[in-house]
């Protein structure tokens, strides 16, 4: 494999990734006061994006096979239930992950 090609390819991916992260700052960062619609969006987007990211993580699950969707479903349920009950971030994440790992490694 040609090293120059790899380097240029990696740099291309790096620059394009940076471009996606930088765009809102370049478009709106110069102004002293943010326009009210942007300030509004910035404050309400986090819950909407977190919901999208949860779906994004689960995007490959397939409901026609139990062994495919049940570990994810139970892992998410365990995490959510524990968090609603104990409100301890680390505890919820650790237990949810252990539930999922046991299910994919030992049960299914």
């Amino acid at each position: 494999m040609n090293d120059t090609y790899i380097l240029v390819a990696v740099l291309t991916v790096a620059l394009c990734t940076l471009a996606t992260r930088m765009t809102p700052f370049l478009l709106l960062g110069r102004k002293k006061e943010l326009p009210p619609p942007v300030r509004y969006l910035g404050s309400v987007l986090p819950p909407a994006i977190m919901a999208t990211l949860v779906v994004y993580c689960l995007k490959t699950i397939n409901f026609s096979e139990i062994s495919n969707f049940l570990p994810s479903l139970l892992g998410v349920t365990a995490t959510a239930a524990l968090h609603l009950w104990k409100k301890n971030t680390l505890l919820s994440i650790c237990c949810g992950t252990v539930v999922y790992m046991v299910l994919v490694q030992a049960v299914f």
Partner: protein
Amino acid sequence: MRLNERQESPQTISVDFLITKDTMKDWKTAFYKTIPVMCGYLFLGMAFGILLQQAGFSPIWAAVSSLLVYAGSMQFVMISLMSSGASLPLIGAMTLLVNSRHLFYGLSFIEKFREFGKKWFYMVFSLTDETYSVFCGLSDTEKTPALMFKIALLDQSYWVLGSAIGALAGAVIPFDTTGIDFAMTALFVVIFIEQWQSFSSHLPAIIGLCSSVLFLAILGADQFILPSLVTTVLLLMMLRDPIVRREEGERNE
């Protein structure tokens, strides 16, 4: 007087890297906040390193791309693009498409990141899904440049470290780590619940959830996220009045 000023200025610049009681406390908090990301990044990073090395690339590229690119899913796509010798315009277009969701993350931090001075660039560069989520989970008093910068830095170190380990020694991990990357999903679930509870109007969360599920069903796993986020933004703008009224009503009571 002049002399004194000159002697003092280097200290104020480097204070962030001195180990004082306050910076130690920030490092501890940053570490605690990023433990879930550590679980995910170390092992996903290893998976990336292993795949890259198996595809015939030198291990050094694992560390280089995790340092310069720092975008989880795109780095996996990058391996297959490079293996097939894809053209640079194609690689660039794929990157813009896969990472288009990042366009929306900065919107919540435009004003906050102004407080970071020279670290502004790094904060923008390192705003991954996971770092964004950890930031969203911070309380208003925790959103200080000192803490947020350390969180961003720790997150990327896990990713770089994982990639390097995977590329160099991936085959010798002594235990079965299958499924450990679920820590990332769990992190998103937990922060989603906290966001849900901290807003009086649940419309933004419901819109995000329904729009992503709907577009996933229609367009499939590879193409849903951008149309879903654009629709979410449009709906949020259309429903601005009721959402704002709900949020402000709650605050006045």
